[in-house]
């Protein structure tokens, strides 16, 4: 009966006219952002965050959620037509999607990507409805030591799963924690590391930081390069509906991708990106003729795209039930909820059921909207790709500038954003990823609070983290992931990074 009442509430909130419109707007803007190379979901959510300030918390998160999985959908379009991923999680789709387009099969590639994403998204939504309430119940049993363990595990996973140097990713996670300490200490009320600067007495805000690190820095990187001629694939996009054979070939990958993607999305550090890579590797491994992968095999599109979207859905569960965002996009979404006065956690389900179930209901509605948007509007998205960059980038700058200013109606936030933009540019040039930094920044206050509470409970003894089984388990797993690259190096093997080679 609970399940039925939950579904009823979910669709009751999601189908309210204003929420329906905002979901549509989020999906449309998300697809738009996903289509444009260079501007990922994290930057897009940061840019559009200020628009949601006037909305209710559930409407804001519905719109931003639509943006998130809309970006996942949109990223596949440029992967297939341009061989340029519009979104990091769509990198894998380039391998076979573009090859299909070269063979004159761009339509079926786009079609199966859209249908696969819809099926996986629907599966993910149903799984959230089933798993979220019991998981929230488990999370209620967590105390401060368990949260320390879980957050530590999350940060470890993000660094372990980074595509570049793990040491550098770990350094960025630590830097994110350090930045989170700047401001006023919540326990003593004392200023820390502010250097007497009034602007940062309350600490840094996530909006200017994220906009700077993802939006401004990305534009600066693109500006520093010459505008290469982008050959937009000039194919007549007929036959967007896959054939019977396409469906027969794709049904297995879609099913496997949906399940795999969803559960990978639950893992801190997971989400769509790792799910799409793992799905591709798995499909290639189990295929009878793996040599066809990379030459235009539809399974190389169906599996990863399904896993990508299912992972994006699964990633919502830890954020909504435990207050632990799995990736940087959800960290920013969580920051958005906190701006609206809602702190996600185990009690969200009980204290804010409209927000929780409204978001879940809008996922289903959003997935349907995206299926309807992506296929008929493909022509429009292709035309968008032809907009010259000299027109596009000032718009991105403008959105960032307005967004940073409106956080506190303070021009100093604009300067902070620009400084983080410069930092982001330099970081990327030196091979440091901003994602672990932002995730750690969001989790930093929670981590410190839980850590200090744990030591208060134990009268200063750190053994509390080892004497509590759940906390100890999380810390043990984290330790294994932290030292395994070193151990593998000693044994002469590589850390299984995000590589597409066998």
């Amino acid at each position, binding site marked *: 009966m609970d399940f039925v009442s939950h579904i009823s509430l979910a669709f009751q909130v999601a189908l309210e006219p204003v929420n329906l419109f905002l979901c549509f707007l989020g999906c449309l803007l998300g697809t738009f952002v996903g289509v444009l190379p260079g501007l990922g979901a994290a930057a897009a959510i940061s840019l559009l965050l*200020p*628009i949601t*300030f*006037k909305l209710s918390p559930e409407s804001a998160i519905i719109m931003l959620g639509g943006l998130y999985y809309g970006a996942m959908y949109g990223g596949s379009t440029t992967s297939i037509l341009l061989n340029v991923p519009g979104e990091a999680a769509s990198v894998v789709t380039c391998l076979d999607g573009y090859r299909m387009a070269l063979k004159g099969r761009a339509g079926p590639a786009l079609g199966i990507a859209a249908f696969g994403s819809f099926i996986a998204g629907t599966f993910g939504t149903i799984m959230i409805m089933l798993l979220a309430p019991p998981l929230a119940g488990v999370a209620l049993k967590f105390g401060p030591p368990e949260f320390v363990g879980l957050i530590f595990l999350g940060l470890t996973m993000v660094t372990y799963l980074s595509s570049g*140097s793990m*040491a*550098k990713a*770990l*350094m960025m996670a*630590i*830097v994110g*924690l*350090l930045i989170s*300490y700047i401001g006023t*200490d919540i*326990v*003593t009320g*004392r200023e*820390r*590391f502010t250097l007497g600067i009034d602007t940062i007495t309350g600490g840094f805000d996530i909006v200017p930081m994220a906009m700077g690190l993802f939006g*401004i820095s990305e*534009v*600066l990187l693109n*500006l*520093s*390069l*010459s*505008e290469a001629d982008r050959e937009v694939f000039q194919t007549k996009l007929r036959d967007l509906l896959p054939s019977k054979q396409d469906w027969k070939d794709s049904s297995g990958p879609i099913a496997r991708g949906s399940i795999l993607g969803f559960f990978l999305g639950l893992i801190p550090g997971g989400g769509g990106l790792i799910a799409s890579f793992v799905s591709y590797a798995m499909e290639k491994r189990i295929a009878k003729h793996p040599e066809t992968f990379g030459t235009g095999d539809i399974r190389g599109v169906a599996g990863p795209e399904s896993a990508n979207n299912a992972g994006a859905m699964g990633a919502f569960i830890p954020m909504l039930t435990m207050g632990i965002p799995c990736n940087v996009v959800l960290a920013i979404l969580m920051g958005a909820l906190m701006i609206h006065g809602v702190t996600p956690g185990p009690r969200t389900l009980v204290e804010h059921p409209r927000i929780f179930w409204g978001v879940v209901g809008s996922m289903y509605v959003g997935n349907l909207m995206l299926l309807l948007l992506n296929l008929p509007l493909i022509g429009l998205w292709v035309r968008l790709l032809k907009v010259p*960059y*000299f*027109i596009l*980038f*000032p*718009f991105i*700058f*403008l959105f960032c*500038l*307005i967004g940073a*200013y*409106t956080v506190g*109606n303070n*021009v100093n936030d*604009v*300067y902070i954003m*620009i400084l983080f*933009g*410069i930092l982001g*540019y330099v970081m990327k*040039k*030196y*091979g*440091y990823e901003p994602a672990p930094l932002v995730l750690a920044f969001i989790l930093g206050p929670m*981590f*410190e609070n839980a*850590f*200090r509470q744990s*030591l*208060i409970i134990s*009268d*200063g003894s750190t053994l509390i983290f080892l004497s509590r089984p759940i906390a100890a388990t999380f810390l043990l797993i984290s330790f294994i992931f932290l030292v395994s690259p070193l151990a593998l190096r000693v044994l002469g093997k590589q850390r299984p990074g995000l590589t597409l080679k066998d």
Partner: protein
Amino acid sequence: MKNRDLVSSIIWMAVGGLFVAGGLQQGLMLRGVPGPGFLPFLSGLALIFVSLFVLIPAVCQKEKAESTGFFPERDSFRKLLFALVALFAFGVAMRHLGYLLTTFLFMFFTPRVMGPKGWGTITLVALLTAVLSYLLFVVLLEVQLPKGLLEF
């Protein structure tokens, strides 16, 4: 990447050192429980330690050509400088000239970062952007943006 890893790891070690010092100053323990400086101290130490994993390989590595330059094209530095000046100028100008005028000027001049462009298109885009964004943010979304010279 050798030189960049060397320089960056030393910089991050220095940052870690600053937080270690700051943490000690704030106080590690307060009446038997962790004080405001405890985690900054630990995190600073962790940053210094992990930086060694970048520093040591960089020191031992043979000199290799960087895969991409810091300013990869001849005019990269000029374009980036122009873009940054435009961004800072927006912040300064908005307070005095107001949002509408500042946005028009910003959208008029910034595209020229990428080289000379047709005045007609740029002027039209700048005008439309300023007006439409004003309508969207100020009128529709009631966002408080500075009024400046034009008083709206």
